[in-house]
């Protein structure tokens, strides 16, 4: 099922390791980047390229939570609910997103645009509450910020950091040890 280009990328990954099987996780990331999820046919292709059984691939897909075994929305929103985000208001954030998108956690919007997931600690506790949209982190969340994130007009943490590296402009919370206002999100703040 996978294209020759994807197969080449997987072969390049395999070449980096003393044992081909080590490339299973990287290969599955390449598949998911390309197709948005990991179809069974792609799993079989990965197994063939690496030289293991498709069962040995599917047991990895089912163990690691980042791999999707069914199609998901174009933008997968993952909201952290672990203790530090919880203490700084992740529950209201999750409720807000459920209402805005009109889905439960784990569901995809009917237009196929968003999937809403609730996840565990994303290692961004100093700028809590935090969510990811696909691979991008969005931190120090407020309801207004979430509106902008859904509209696609908010900068991600990585974009802010790259701006800092290029221009040396101080971004509050990014490189000082202080990461932002100490209140749980209020509507409109």
């Amino acid at each position, binding site marked *: 099922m996978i294209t020759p280009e994807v197969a080449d990328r997987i072969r390049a990954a395999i070449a980096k390791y003393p044992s081909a099987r080590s490339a299973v996780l990287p290969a599955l990331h390449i598949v998911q980047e390309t197709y948005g999820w990991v179809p069974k046919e792609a799993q079989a292709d990965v197994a063939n390229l690496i030289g293991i059984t498709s069962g040995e691939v599917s047991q990895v897909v089912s163990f690691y939570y980042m791999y999707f075994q069914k199609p998901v929305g174009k933008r997968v929103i993952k909201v952290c609910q672990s*203790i530090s985000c919880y203490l700084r208001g992740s529950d209201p954030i999750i409720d807000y997103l459920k209402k805005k998108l009109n889905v439960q956690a784990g569901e995809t919007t009917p237009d196929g645009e968003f999937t809403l997931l609730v996840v565990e600690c994303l290692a961004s506790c100093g700028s809590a509450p935090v969510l990811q949209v696909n691979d991008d982190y969005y931190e120090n969340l407020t309801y207004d910020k979430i509106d902008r994130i859904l509209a696609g007009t908010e900068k991600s943490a990585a974009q802010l950091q790259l701006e800092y590296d290029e221009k*040396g402009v101080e971004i509050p919370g990014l490189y000082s040890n202080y990461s932002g206002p100490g209140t749980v999100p209020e509507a409109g703040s």
Partner: protein
Amino acid sequence: MSGMGVYLNLDVPNMKDIDVYIKHGGYQALEKALKEMQPSQVTDMVKASGLRGRGGAGFPTGVKWGFVPANINPKYVVCNCDESEPGTFKDRKIIEHNPHMLIEGIIIAAYAIGAVKAFAYLRGEFAFGAKVLQSAVDQAYARGYLGKSILGSNFSLDMVVHRGAGAYICGEESAQLESLEGKRGYPRLRPPFPAVSGVYAKPTLINNCETLSTVPLIVKNGAEWYSKWGTEKSKGTRAYSLSGHVNKPGTYDLPMNTTLRQLIDEYGGGVPGGKKVKAVIPGGSSAAMLPASMLDTPIAFDELTAAGSMGGSGAVVVMDEDTDIVRATLRIHEFYREESCGKCTPCREGTFWLVQILERIAHGGGMPGDVEKLLDICSQIGGRAFCLLADGAIPCIISSIKYFREEYDYYIQHGHSMYADREIAEAAR
């Protein structure tokens, strides 16, 4: 503001660029190690510095390096960048902002033990970090700090940046090696330990990201310089991750004799709204919580163990006086239930059972005897599971019951939290 320790030059823009890194003294430690020191001297220096593992276990780093046998090859270095302990976010800053410091530490460690290849295992969510680290690795290859005959010596090293895919258990050493080999992240039976039989059954040195990032500082400035900070058994500085109810959450690299009160008040700006601290988790959610009366404990390994908690990952989570401890504990235990790998019964069944009872209590169905049952389940998990994830899954609830028993009793007696009643009483006034 400039930092110290692994956050030295924290405010310098673009430290991920090799020229900026070199301009600020980068790769001088590597040069010193390769040109002036024997591999065993590097290990001795790390031993003398008193550096202890910064991932969670706090094992003496130099001693761990010494466990790797000299005469079995090939040998590998694995850098554990799987940072997933709730409350911890110190390694991410190193990877995204100062990856060359990490690379330099990995190369020096590989030189010390005679490794031929190094893997940086990043948690899958660090997609951006993996890109940044890979670019830095490419730059290091281009300048001759990685690859064949580094800096003209007869030491060569290859480095691979490897991403996990979402599993807290893969921060556990042996599970990480299983994952690196392309399998499910189930922990291994030890012995044999990774030093003797690690990845691909070969001798492997596996250390935390911050631990290895500290090595260039030690090699450049010497063991005495590093050991002049800290407490007697917790030498040096560490990057604390401060979060929860504080005004200035963030990462702070500070000497290890810093107390919880100093971190929270002097650096963290105190609790928002001028409220009081109710409880602090001093070392990541696998560490027992401590009440406000113990805030003058230094955030160091032995001192925290003596206080009934542990140094862990150095993640300090602050809970203010209005925190519902039962619900916070429930949230923490949902994490362990989620992340239990399922291999062994005490953890797999125990984490589910604990959450089941906590949920029942939090939603008004608590019954007399529930607290005793929770403690009994914990005693069947602790020390009886296949790996230490389970041992980290119980201190929170045990300490919450020890210090805040009245909150559980109130829930069980009244069917709701004491905070609900307090709010109603205050509203009526």
